[in-house]
């Protein structure tokens, strides 16, 4: 495996990027349902797919939860494919059965999968047809979480993008702020308080907890991306006239400060006021980070592609914790949204986009980083080879954004190292 690496310069940062197209070892977009169905409490996600999709959801989610979920799979069977049954009629029947069982559902997503895409089952027409039948009680939308089109967190992007046309038009001429991307409730509450203290009171979060309470959007809407994987959602919001405030992502002290600064600047809040508002939480966060610096500073880290959070996480770990970046792999580099992040990345880091997992494992083994951030399929095998790992998925299922969580974020990386030091077996 000594083939020369395909390194091409990135257009906007002039930084070389290794682009690979081989075997990917990343979840498909369906997995986003695992957190989205908890975030949106009156929504239900019906995957139109195969037994594999159902098994994926149960295995990916089953590692963490096992309760009656607000998602299910309409499993396509031979008779649907052979034309013995009209797939649309079957789908209507399934939706009827589901809505009878769950009368509390207000928003139903028909979620496309690899098989439904390949057989070209038109879920947007199905959603329109069913919406008519169940209006106004249930709204029915569709998006694709298929693995031939989406990677892991892109499922959230596709889901939110499907909701953008449903958002009511902003009636007020006053500017409003929209924070985009699913966040933990506790993070939302903290953000709300900080925006209030800054004097920005017209703030909404998207997605919201309820389908009846969708945020309005219009030309006076400014939006901040709280997550780095929302390319389509951002494009559609811009299509509705909203303007994106370029900012860092709210990970770590610097990221969170940059995130709020972007809003403060757009609202012409003066620097003194901004500093006084974030002074206390910033100081708390810095103090919380102090505790983990000893364990992590100078240690090397390798990111396998997973959630698209890799670049802002790497920026945080290198600039605030002093870790050494070896490779930062990500499924997709959104150059525009990551622009500010990339300018803060240290020199010498290898950025990679896409994946050829066996070659990437070769590089990781050769470099023997102190910690590797990777998916669930790779973690135990790497541990067994003596490499310390951090499950990437935990970074998606843990509140890590904002000042008050900066310490928790560092702790997630310190814990595997700490554990390895303690263990004598």
């Amino acid at each position, binding site marked *: 495996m000594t083939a020369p690496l395909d390194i091409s310069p990135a257009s906007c940062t002039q930084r070389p990027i290794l682009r690979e197209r081989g075997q990917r*070892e990343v979840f498909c977009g369906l997995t986003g349902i695992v957190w989205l169905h908890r975030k949106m409490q009156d929504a239900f996600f019906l995957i139109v797919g195969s037994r594999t999709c159902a098994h994926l959801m149960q295995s*990916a989610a089953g590692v963490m939860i096992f309760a009656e979920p607000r998602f299910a799979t309409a499993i396509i069977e031979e008779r649907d494919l052979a034309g013995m049954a009209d797939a649309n009629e079957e789908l209507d029947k399934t939706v009827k059965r589901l809505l009878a069982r769950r009368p509390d559902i207000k928003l139903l997503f028909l979620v496309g999968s*690899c*098989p439904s895409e390949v057989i070209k089952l038109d879920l947007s027409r199905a959603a329109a047809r069913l919406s008519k039948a169940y209006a106004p009680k249930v709204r029915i939308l569709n998006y694709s979480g298929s693995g*031939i089109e989406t990677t892991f967190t892109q499922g959230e992007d596709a889901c939110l993008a499907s909701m953008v046309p449903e958002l009511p038009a902003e009636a007020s001429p006053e500017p409003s702020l929209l924070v985009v991307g699913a966040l933990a409730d506790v993070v939302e509450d903290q953000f709300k308080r900080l925006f209030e203290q800054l004097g920005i009171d017209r703030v909404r979060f998207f997605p919201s907890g309820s389908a009846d309470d969708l945020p309005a959007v219009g030309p006076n809407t400014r939006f901040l991306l709280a997550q780095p994987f929302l390319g389509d959602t951002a494009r559609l919001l811009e299509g509705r006239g909203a303007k994106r405030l370029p900012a860092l992502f709210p990970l770590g002290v610097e990221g969170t400060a940059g995130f709020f600064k972007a809003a403060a600047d757009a609202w012409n809040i003066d620097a003194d006021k901004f500093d006084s508002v974030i002074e206390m939480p910033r100081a708390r966060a810095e103090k919380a980070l102090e505790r983990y610096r000893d364990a992590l500073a100078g240690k090397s880290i390798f990111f396998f592609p997973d959630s698209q959070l890799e670049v802002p996480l790497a920026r945080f770990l290198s600039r605030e914790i002093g870790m050494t970046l070896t490779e930062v792999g990500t499924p997709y580099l959104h150059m525009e949204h990551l622009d500010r992040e990339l300018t803060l990345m240290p020199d010498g880091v290898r950025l990679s986009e896409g994946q050829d997992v066996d070659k990437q494992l070769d590089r990781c083994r050769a470099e023997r980083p102190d910690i590797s951030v990777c998916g669930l399929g790779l973690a135990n095998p790497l541990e067994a080879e003596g490499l310390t790992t951090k499950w990437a998925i935990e970074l998606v299922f843990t509140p890590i954004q904002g000042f008050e969580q900066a310490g928790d974020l560092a702790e997630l990386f310190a814990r595997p190292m700490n554990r390895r030091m303690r263990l004598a077996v």
Partner: protein
Amino acid sequence: MQLAVWTYEGPPHVGAMRVATAMKDVHYVLHAPQGDTYADLLFTMIERRDARPPVTYTTFQARDLGADTADIFKRAARDAYDRFQPKAMFVGASCTAELIQDDPGGLAKALALPVPVVPLELPSYTRKENWGAAETFYQLIRALADRNAEKLSQKTDRPSCNLLGPTALGFRHRDDVKEISNLLFHLGVEINVIAPMNAKAADIARIPAADFNVVLYPEIADTAARWLEREFKQPFTKTVPIGVGATRDFIKEVSDLAGIDAPDIEDAGNMGWWSRSIDSTYLTGKRVFIFGDATHAVAAARVASEELAFEVVGLGCYNREFARDLRAAAKRYDVEPLITDDYLVVEDAIAKAQPELVLGTQMERHIAKRLGIPCAVISAPVHVHDFPARYAPQMGFEGANVLFDTWVHPLVMGLEEHLLHMFRDDFEFNDEAGASHLGGHGAASKEPPTVEADPETGPEADNVIRWEPAAEKELKKIPFFVRGKARRNTENYAAERQIQLISVDTLYDAKAHYGR
């Protein structure tokens, strides 16, 4: 279309992965999109394997469709061979690739790799995981079994057998293999090959050299064993040695096949005495609902009935391929067989039967938790905590010991049960607190959810039996673990006598009629 919340089995290519991952030097090239790589975590996380499954996924994308997905497959297969140097390869498609019809078998053949390549046709839209494992194992043996295997094996004068069926991700397969291997060793039977677990491709070639086959898991090995019987005149065992009685039958069957005298078994483990000892009296007639794969469910029913003196009140399986065995067993216990892979149907059946113990899969554990019924796991699919660090087989005499412990543990202990009958309202010590040895984490008492009338038929007003408030109150004095039975008995008693309103007297009349 089938509406599924949870599924009992994965798709058939996951069955193929279980065979490939169990083995030592094979590789599986799977034409599949990237999302299908989730299956790796079943092995690395749930089973805690320390190596990646030997599977290469082609991870084609939407933009590849109609262009060069076949090329992607060929490249992936060749790269996988170069990198991993397997001694045999499986090639096949997952559900999505099945639709694009690239013919992985034909493509792989064109590559002319220097090792045997076994093409797998696993129809994803009609078949499931166990079938996929069985088909894969059968195709592997068909492709590799050597007609001159005798020469490959070191022959001793002892009778020999193969142990067929254990795979990766199997429920206690690791420990069952060890237990049954020891048992066969003590019987003086040589083990020729264990497969697929830990087998190499070369071992598969040697399978025909054995005198007979031991089928540990019919769901996986039955197809292969039948073929071996036809082609190589190898008979195979039909008894699955789960429980003391079945293990004794198994020993007899093996001895017959091996042409040796069945030994007298002196030490058959503790299960028999533990069950006969008087502390176990309270287990008598406990109503148990059993659901799992057919083999484990049928075996559990026999253990429950003959070795613990439980009463089997429900018996079912999720794999239709073995429905016949399950129906036969259900007849023995005079219960309606439940053959379904719809988790919601199983939930309804359990709620209706109101058992005192559920023996099932991880799905039934969830159902039982919701209904407040004690539960033990007896069958795949299982979760990470059902892969214990300790030795915990299900088969053989040690397996029977394990069954006794794990099935009895979730129940409230005998004398505690009596005290709960006597003093129901003690604020600290009551049935709602759950079994005391489970530290409040056991199944806590819950009123069984009222089974809703079927909306299709609607309640038949004439036949509704109601309870007088006083009778309802009296019923609540009965601890939860027998309350369901008392309710059912009373309602049956009332129905038979056209009593529409149950009084306290009806409750006690029914009690006298049925006995405890």
